[in-house]
C-alpha cells in the first residue's frame, strides 16, 4: 500500500504552494478578481505554460505529462488555500478533460496544444439557468438542415472570458441525450455576461445561445453521445473541487490558529480558552478526514476506470468536503469575532467560496441521494 505522495507529488505540492503564496496574497486576489476577466492573463500563462500545469493531465502523445486527478488535487488544494482566481478549474479540470474524453483526434489536436501552451482558455457550460447538474436548458437541433444551439447556461466558470466553450446541450432528435459541442466563445449568437456572484473571487457567467450555428466537426464524439463523458468529467471535477475545499479549510484553520494566539481577551490569548481550542480541534478533525477522502477519491478515479466507483468516490468527497469547508469557514468567522465579519478580513471570502462550491456539482443532499441509490436504497 502506498497511499502517500510520491517524491514527484511532494515536489509538485511544494511548487504549487510557493507559487500560489507568491501570487495569491489577499490584495492580489482581490485586485485580480475585480478585473473584467476576473483574472490576470499573464499569471495564467505562467500557470499553464511556464509551470507546465496546462499539460498535467494531457496524454504524452500531445506533449502532456499524462498525470491524474491526484496531481490536479494537489494543485487545487493550493488554489483553495489562496482562493487564487484563474481559469485553471474551467480549462484544465473541466473543458480539457471533456475534450479528451469525448473528442476525436482532430478535435483534440485542434485545441489541446494551445491550452498546453497557455495560449487558449476554455470552460464547460454544463447546467442551465439554475445551476443544477442535469438540468440543462440548452438544446441542439437541426433547423433547415443545419445544427443550431439555443437556450441558456448558467454559472459557467469564467464563461465570459475564455476562448472556447464546451457546451452541454440536450439533443432534440436523440431523446434529449446530451451532446457536447466545442465552440469559440465569440461565435455569432453566443452572448456571455459575467454576473455578480456571491463569491467575489470566482467569476461565473450567464450564457445565452440564440440559434448558434454548430459548424461541422464541432460536436465532440457525435450527437447525443455525451452523457457518460459529461458525467465522468463532472465526477472528476467534483473530486478536484473537493481538494480546493480542503485547501480553503486548511487556510481557514491557519488564520484561526494565528488569531487565537494573538488575540488577547480577559488577560490571555483566546486560544487558551477551551471554547476556542475545541472549535479549532474540530476543524482539524474535519480537515484531515476531508483530505483523506479527497486523495482516496482521487486515487480511485485514477486507478479504477469503472463509472460506478468513480461516482461514489466523487459523492463521498463532495459531501464530506463541502461540509468540512463550510463549517470550518463559518467557525473561522466566529473565532475572529467582529473582525471576521468585515469585508477587509479574508474570512468571508473563504466562507463564500465554501457556500458557493457546495452546489457546484450538486449539493450534499443531491450526492447523498445518489449514494443512497448506489447503496440500493429505494
Amino acid at each position, binding site marked *: 500500500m502506498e497511499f502517500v505522495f510520491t517524491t514527484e507529488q511532494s515536489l509538485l505540492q511544494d511548487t504549487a504552494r510557493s507559487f500560489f503564496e507568491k501570487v495569491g496574497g489577499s490584495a492580489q486576489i482581490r485586485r485580480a478578481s475585480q478585473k473584467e476577466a476576473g483574472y490576470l492573463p499573464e499569471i495564467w500563462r505562467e500557470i499553464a505554460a511556464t509551470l507546465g500545469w496546462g499539460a498535467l493531465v494531457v496524454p504524452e502523445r500531445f506533449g502532456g505529462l499524462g498525470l491524474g486527478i491526484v496531481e490536479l488535487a494537489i494543485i487545487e488544494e493550493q488554489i483553495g488555500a489562496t482562493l487564487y482566481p484563474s481559469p485553471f478549474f474551467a480549462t484544465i479540470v473541466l473543458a480539457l478533460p471533456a475534450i479528451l474524453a469525448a473528442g476525436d483526434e482532430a478535435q483534440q489536436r485542434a485545441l489541446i496544444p494551445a491550452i498546453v501552451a497557455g495560449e487558449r482558455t476554455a470552460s464547460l457550460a454544463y447546467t442551465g439557468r*439554475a*445551476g*443544477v447538474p442535469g438540468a440543462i436548458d440548452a438544446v441542439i437541433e437541426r433547423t433547415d438542415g443545419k445544427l443550431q444551439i439555443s437556450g441558456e447556461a*448558467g*454559472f459557467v466558470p469564467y464563461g465570459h472570458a475564455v476562448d472556447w466553450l464546451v457546451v452541454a446541450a440536450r439533443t432534440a432528435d436523440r431523446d434529449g441525450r446530451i451532446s457536447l459541442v466545442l465552440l469559440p466563445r465569440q461565435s455569432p449568437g453566443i452572448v456571455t455576461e*459575467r*454576473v*455578480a*456572484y*456571491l*463569491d*467575489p473571487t470566482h467569476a461565473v457567467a450567464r450564457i445565452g445561445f440564440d440559434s448558434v450555428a454548430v459548424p461541422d466537426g464541432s460536436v465532440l464524439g457525435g450527437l447525443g453521445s455525451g452523457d457518460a463523458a459529461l458525467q465522468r468529467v463532472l465526477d472528476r471535477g467534483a473530486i478536484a473541487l473537493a481538494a480546493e475545499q480542503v485547501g480553503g479549510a486548511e487556510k481557514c484553520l491557519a488564520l484561526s490558529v494565528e488569531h487565537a494566539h494573538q488575540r*488577547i*481577551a*480577559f*488577560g*490571555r490569548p483566546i486560544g487558551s*480558552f477551551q*471554547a*476556542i481550542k475545541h472549535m479549532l480541534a474540530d476543524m482539524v478533525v474535519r480537515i484531515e478526514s476531508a483530505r483523506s477522502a479527497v486523495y482516496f477519491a482521487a486515487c480511485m478515479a485514477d486507478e479504477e476506470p469503472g463509472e460506478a466507483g468513480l461516482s461514489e468516490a466523487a459523492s463521498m468527497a463532495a459531501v464530506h468536503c463541502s461540509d468540512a469547508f463550510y463549517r470550518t469557514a*463559518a467557525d473561522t*468567522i*466566529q473565532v475572529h*469575532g*467582529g473582525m*471576521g*465579519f*468585515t*469585508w*477587509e478580513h479574508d*474570512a*468571508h471570502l473563504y*466562507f*463564500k467560496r465554501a*457556500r*458557493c462550491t457546495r*452546489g457546484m456539482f450538486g*449539493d450534499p*443532499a443531491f450526492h447523498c441521494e445518489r449514494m443512497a441509490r448506489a447503496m440500493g436504497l429505494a
Partner: protein
Amino acid sequence: MKLGFTAAEEAFRGEIAGWFERALTGDFARLRGPTFGRDDIALMKSWERHLGDCGLGTIAWPRAYGGRAATLIERVIFAEEEARAGLGPRPNHIAVELVGPTIFAFGRDDQKSRFLPPIAAGREFWAQCFSEPGAGSDLANLRTKAQREGGKWVIEGQKIWSSLAHIADWGLVLCRTEAGSVGSRGLSLLLVPMAQPHVTIRPIRQMTGESEFNEIFFDGARTAAHNIIGEPGDGWKAAMATLGFERGVSTLGTQARYRRELELVLTAARDNGKAADPAIRQRLARAEIGLRVMRANSLRMLANMECQREGREAVINKLYYATWHQELGELAMDVLGRMAELAEGMDYAFPPLTRMFLFSRADTIYAGTHQIQRNIIAERVLGLPRDPR
C-alpha cells in the same frame, strides 16, 4: 397561567397598528421593506421627528420627559407592531432605549433637561461608543483615554462596532479617565458631541457588502467637563447598567421580523418546488417550531418581568435566537439553491434572504459572542467556577 393580552392591551395594539398604517404613507412608505430606508439619512431622521411629534418616540419614558409611561407589555406591543408594519430597528434605538434610561438612572437634573427632550422629540441622535478593536468581549480592557484640560475632557482613542454613528449628534463614550488604571476601575461615561473636527467616523464594510457599523477615531476630541455620567470612575457601573437596559423589550419586534423572513423562505420553497422535498420540509417545520418556541419563551420572560422576576428564560434569549436565525439563513440558501448566489447587475447587492444569510453570521458575535453568553449562563445561572485568569 394564561396566554392572551388584556382588552386594554389589545386596544393599545389597535391604536398603534392603526397609527403605523396611517403614518407609513407618502415618503415614509419607503421605510417598509428590507433596507428600511437606511440609505436615506434625511428620511430616517424625519421619521424619528414624526414619531416624536406624535408622542410615540419614547413611550416608555415618564410623561414629564415626553413619554407616555407605557407598561412593559405596551412597549412590547409597540415593538411588535413596528416590525409588523415592515419597519426595521429604530434609527435612534440607542438614544431611546439605552442613553435615555442611563441618564434617568445616573444623570443629573441638568443633564435630564438638556438631553432627554431632544431625544423624545426625535431631534438628537446618539451613538454608543463602548467596544474597541482590542476590547470586544472584554470591555474592561479598553484603552480610550480622556483627561481634563481646563473645563473640558480631551479624548484620545478608537472605538468600533458603533451602529449608525454617522448619523449621531452625540456619543455615549466609555473611556479611561484615571491614568494608569486597569480593568474596570478608572472608567467614565462621557457624553461627547460627534460633530467636531477631532472625531472621525469611518464606516466598516461588512461581508454583506454594506456598512452598518463604524469605527470612530477620537483624536483630541473635546466635551465639556460636566458632560460625564456620575463622577469620574463611575463608568463601569453605568456602562454595565446601560447594557442591561431594554433587555427583552425588542425581542417580539425582532421575532416579527424573523416571521417575515421565514415567510419569504416558505414562499420560495412553495414556488420552486423544494417544499416537496421531505428533508427540506422537515427543516422548514423545525424552523417554524423553533420560532414558535422562541415566541413562547419571550412571552414567559415578559410575563415574569412584569412581575419583577427574572427567570432563566431571559438569559437564554440571545443564544437561542442567534442559533435559530443562523440556521434559518442556511435553510434559506438550501431552499433557494444556487439562484441565491446571484445578484442582479454587477453590484454586490443580493436578494433579502441572501443578505440575511450573510448577516446572520454576526448573530453569534455581536452583543456577547456565543462563547461569552455560555460563560455567563454557566457562571451566573449555574454557579460554576469562573475561568481561571
